[in-house]
């Protein structure tokens, strides 16, 4: 019974923890401008993150070591440093976006300017990272994040034309009001939102935090291959709700307040309460994960003591890095930049940096010295190589598309 509960908890947490501010905003923007014409990208992104997370989780479980510890050792300090720099900067941008997301979520409830919440949100993140146990932190935000299922409920309550939605999803096309370059820009952004690097750093380091071993690979696979796809369904529901309500009205999403309007329209006040709880949990949970990821990447590369399974006094530099990153995130937001703009840039640059983080994992997952007989099978490698091509193409196309389209304007 206890084991069933643990398995269920792992899967539910994976579903609820899948969506962050990047997924919320990007899926809503895409739904309001392209309908479900980019649904295929969500599917591609979910398969990609399943592959990516499974490999890195397996590496951590079998080797007992997390991502950056192995990257530096296996690929050398120079390659490791290039990897670290790209990953850390993207992580910092994502952290700023998530802290901004928490503040925007609080604005939905209070009507108070989000900049008044930046410091409070960052402080709350720090307190939870400092005091809460790893599993409590992960489970609480993951379970509360399940409230975002309200998007799927609302899609049904809105009584959409299902055949039209299916047509948009299965026969994607660029609407007459949009440019092909803008369509592909958002395809890259959506892909970047699904495969943000911090998810993998957190997942693999979390495997070490929770003491996963080879015997836990079954649970790990279940979390990834059941939890993440169901989380992907939430992403599609966000896009669908925007497609049903906002697209016909010509409202293209530019703020978090617009993301929740379809939920209000379809489900009223009760649905609104659920969605706000879900958004707060998703953004706060993602802020916790990106904060921890920033500590994990630096500490693992530098060989410092790290982990929430150690007392703070036993890993002082790990905790100091996280504090500095939270301060830096608030400083970015304090410049007055729109948190939504930070979010959009973070998902695009996630796509740019993906090859640097994906390739080392693919190499190590095939290395028998670290993995023994748990190396990638032929099928996984075949899919892995296809995704390598997709990731490199997305990475190369991201910045030119951003320039040509004015960041999707």
């Amino acid at each position, binding site marked *: 019974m206890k084991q069933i509960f643990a398995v269920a908890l792992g899967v539910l947490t994976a579903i609820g923890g899948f969506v962050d501010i990047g997924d919320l905003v990007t899926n809503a923007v895409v739904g309001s401008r392209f309908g479900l014409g980019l649904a295929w990208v969500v599917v591609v992104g979910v398969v990609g993150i399943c592959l990516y997370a499974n490999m890195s989780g397996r590496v951590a479980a079998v080797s007992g070591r997390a991502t950056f510890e192995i990257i530096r050792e296996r690929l050398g300090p120079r390659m490791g440093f290039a990897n670290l720099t790209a990953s850390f900067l993207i992580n910092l941008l994502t952290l700023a976006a998530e802290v901004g997301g928490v503040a925007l979520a609080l604005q939905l409830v209070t009507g108070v300017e989000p900049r008044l919440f930046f410091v409070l949100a960052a402080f709350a993140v720090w307190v939870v990272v400092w005091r809460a146990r790893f599993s409590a932190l992960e489970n609480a935000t993951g379970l509360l994040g399940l409230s975002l299922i309200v998007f799927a409920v609302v899609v049904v309550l809105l009584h959409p034309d299902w055949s039209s939605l299916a047509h948009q999803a299965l026969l994607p096309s660029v609407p007459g009001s949009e440019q092909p370059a803008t369509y592909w820009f958002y395809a890259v952004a959506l892909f970047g939102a699904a495969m943000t690097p911090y998810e993998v750093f957190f997942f693999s380091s979390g495997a070490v935090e929770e003491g996963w071993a080879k015997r836990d690979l079954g649970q790990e696979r279940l979390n990834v291959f059941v939890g993440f796809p169901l989380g992907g369904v939430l992403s599609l529901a966000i896009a669908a709700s925007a497609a049903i309500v906002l697209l016909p*009205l010509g409202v293209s999403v530019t703020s978090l307040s617009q993301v929740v309007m379809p939920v209000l329209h379809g489900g009223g*006040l009760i649905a609104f309460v659920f969605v706000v709880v879900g958004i707060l949990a998703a953004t706060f949970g993602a802020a916790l994960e990106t904060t921890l990821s920033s500590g994990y990447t630096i500490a693992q590369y530098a060989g410092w003591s790290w982990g929430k399974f150690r007392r703070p006094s036993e890993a002082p530099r790990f905790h100091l890095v996280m504090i500095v990153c939270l301060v830096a995130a608030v400083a970015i937001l304090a410049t007055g930049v729109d948190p939504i703009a930070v979010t959009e840039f973070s998902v695009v640059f996630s796509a740019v940096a993906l090859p640097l983080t994906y390739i080392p994992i693919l190499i190590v997952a095939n290395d028998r010295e670290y993995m023994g007989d748990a190396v990638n099978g032929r099928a996984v490698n075949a899919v892995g190589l296809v995704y390598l091509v997709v990731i490199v193409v997305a990475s190369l196309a991201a910045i030119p598309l951003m320039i040509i389209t004015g960041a999707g304007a």
Partner: protein
Amino acid sequence: MASMGSRAVRGVVIAIALVSLAGCSSVPDQLRDAAGSAAAATSGAALAVRLHHTAGAPSAITDTVLSDALTELETAGTDVTDLDAATDAERAARSTALEAVRVATDAVLDAREKLASGEEPSDDALASAAAALEELGS
């Protein structure tokens, strides 16, 4: 070696310039884009006011949407003002767009004031302002 390196740098600079130029658009296109953004923001504001009336949306969220719409309209207005209109036709189009953005801004401000004072704002003025902007944006 040095000439290969400088050739490579020149190549990158030319590529970036070409990509950047590909993103440039004419004054009518920029006017359409600004009007389109303003129309989207005003439509969103109209929807928020309707939801406040029909779905019991809390005033906090309605006010947030109206506030966000004002920011978008301000940006659109600045974009239109900053356009370098070279011909009389372009100057006339710019004036028309600025007037439409002003009308929409007034409608949003009015809705926000009514909401703050406890009155029920109407979405009629917002819907009509959005329609006028959509016309310009198409």
